């Protein structure tokens, strides 16, 4: 190693240490400015983590719902579309669902095939004209995969008896907590439900339990009842429409094999795995996805812009200091090191604080979302979100500082000092 190289390295080391001390001194001297810059970067990081977390939450929640439904395959007729009519839910495009499910259940490897329907229904507490619309969910059987937080599960679906609607109606219904609260009812109370106002006036149901399952799945208040009774009160017993057939394969059967065989046997239907079904639902919601994606992009863009402008401002405000140093003969590298040091420190502090504050913010926002719209787990974070936010805070902070520092170093010092 030549003496010249060694001297150069020593000088760079001295500069680096001096830049570090200068950075710390500037921060110590300008606590308010530093604090405001850190708060700004923290907000930028929170905007990124929370909005990106909302996007992830939608996907994760959807996936979890399909996973926890304890089904392996989903059968639909054509696309799975969210209906724009009434209170929400999916369009019911799969007709004669009872016979179809019975046929599929007889196929090798299929343990259970159950139709699932969503219809808009009118609900009232006393059968008067004060009706409100909700999504009515029809399930066959007691629904062992339905989570009940208060009261009991549904008994079953005895009204549909051997191909007829000759059994006895249970007149039982599950509500989600938000629906129960909005109707001011609890377990044991009665409500009127029907596909038309006339049908609702005539059909009284007893609230037997509180269940969040379908409210979480649909993101909207729901009433859950036996499938045949939903078809009855909505006048659909003739066509027996459903949104899905949910299939559970036998323990010793391979899901892919059963799927392939069913697809060959029923080419007119779409048969998908949990993941494929989620993707199919989401693909139909291009506008929704585009809006969500735009939101995340805007969040990241806003975070980048906010961080950039804050750091630029912090550096710009120190122009007289840097100009005085330049006049004294202090070189641009020392000034740039100081500036980069400030960018890194503000990015690290703001980014770190934003990441530390993200989990409690997620909890608070999720509670708020649950209370307001009843949607649980709206925001879910992932390690890559934290990494992205910190990288933006530190990376953009440093880049902004370098750009601002370079511009300041290019400004004739006398312009600033005179």
């Amino acid at each position, binding site marked *: 190693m030549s003496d010249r190289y060694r*001297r150069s390295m*020593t*000088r760079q080391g*001295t*500069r680096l*240490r*001096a830049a570090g*001390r*200068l950075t710390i*001194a*500037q921060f*110590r*001297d*300008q606590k308010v400015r530093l604090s405001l810059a850190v708060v700004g970067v923290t907000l930028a990081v929170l905007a990124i983590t929370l909005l990106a977390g909302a996007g992830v939450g939608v996907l994760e929640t959807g996936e979890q719902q399909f996973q926890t439904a304890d089904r392996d395959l989903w059968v639909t007729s054509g696309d799975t579309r969210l209906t724009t009519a009434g209170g929400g839910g999916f369009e019911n495009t799969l007709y004669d669902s009872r016979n179809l499910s019975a046929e599929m259940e007889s196929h090798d490897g299929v343990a259970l095939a159950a139709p699932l329907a969503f219809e808009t229904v009118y609900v009232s507490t006393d059968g008067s004209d004060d009706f409100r619309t909700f999504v009515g969910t029809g399930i066959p059987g007691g629904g062992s995969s339905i989570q009940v937080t208060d009261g009991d599960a549904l008994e079953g679906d005895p009204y549909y008896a051997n191909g007829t609607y000759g059994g006895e109606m249970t007149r039982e219904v599950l509500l989600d907590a938000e629906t129960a609260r909005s109707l001011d009812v609890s377990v044991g109370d009665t409500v009127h439900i029907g596909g038309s106002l006339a049908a609702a006036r005539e059909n009284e149901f007893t609230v037997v339990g509180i269940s969040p399952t379908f409210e979480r799945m649909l993101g909207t208040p729901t009433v859950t009842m036996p499938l045949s009774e939903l078809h009855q009160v909505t006048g659909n017993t003739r066509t027996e429409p459903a949104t899905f057939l949910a299939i559970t394969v036998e323990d010793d059967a391979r899901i892919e094999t059963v799927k392939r065989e069913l697809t060959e046997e029923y080419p007119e239907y779409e048969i998908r795995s949990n993941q494929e079904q989620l993707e199919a639902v989401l693909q139909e919601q291009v506008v929704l996805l585009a809006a969500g994606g735009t939101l995340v992009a805007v969040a990241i863009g806003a975070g980048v812009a906010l961080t950039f402008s804050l750091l630029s401002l912090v550096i710009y405000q120190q122009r*007289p*200091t840097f*100009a*005085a*140093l*330049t*006049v*004294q*003969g*202090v*070189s*641009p590298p*020392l000034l740039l090191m100081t500036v980069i040091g400030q960018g890194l420190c503000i990015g690290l502090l703001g980014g770190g604080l934003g990441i530390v504050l993200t989990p409690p913010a997620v909890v608070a926002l999720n509670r708020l979302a649950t209370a307001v719209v009843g949607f649980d787990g709206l925001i879910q974070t992932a390690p890559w979100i934290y990494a992205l936010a910190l990288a933006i805070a530190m990376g953009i902070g440093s880049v902004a500082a370098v750009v601002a520092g370079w511009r300041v170093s290019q400004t*004739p*010092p*006398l312009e600033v*000092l*005179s």
Partner: protein
Amino acid sequence: MAGSVASFDEASSSVVVSATDVSKRYTRGTEPGVLGRLLGRQSPPTVRAVDSASLEVRTEEIVGLAGPSGSGKSTLLHLLAGLERPTDGTVTFRGTDLASLSRRERTRHRLEHIGIVFQQFHLLDSLSARANVALPLVETGVGKRERRRRATDLLERVGLGDRLTHRPRELSGGEQQRVAIARALVTDPALVIADEPTGELDTESGRAILQEFERVAENRAVVLASHDRETLDLCDRLLRLRDGAVVDQPSRGGPRE
């Protein structure tokens, strides 16, 4: 065109810096582009801040620049310090034409050979008096212990031995200017430039600062720009400027003699 020449004619003194027919013109605004010319936009007016001025400054000499505001005193100081390049003429520092140096080289040149004192001190509020003085030495590769020693010595020399760790805002105006003088001297420059060094100070503080400048000039050249009569009385000779040009012959010898 040869301008007025002001020289200190003493064979034993070596010339530190000289300006020969230097002019500095500034353009107010930008030159019009093609479209601007088509639209009839005129070239912006130019202002001649310094007009064919010449002078030589030698070691142990204090030269004062006098004149009303806008007469070109500060611009001439900046040209001598290498902060600006002349539009015409040459500024030579110990035989080197400053216009031949790159920007980086001129920055290095100022660090090693020129100390600058401003009217408004321009100290870093975030650093102590000693750290302010020691900072330029970082660039020269001087070790930390030596930097502290030199800064302490200089602050003691200017009477601030008990203010080493004070921040600028904890010091009076006169004390801050003495810190600025110590900072200007820390690299042991051959030329000290001072622009209105007593302009922000009361009479008593100003006198104390002038005494410092007398000491400063013991082994180096000093160029002061000032409106203040008492400050100018300190100088070995004076150049009076008006509208950028030197309008008065130098006075030989001054109160120091």
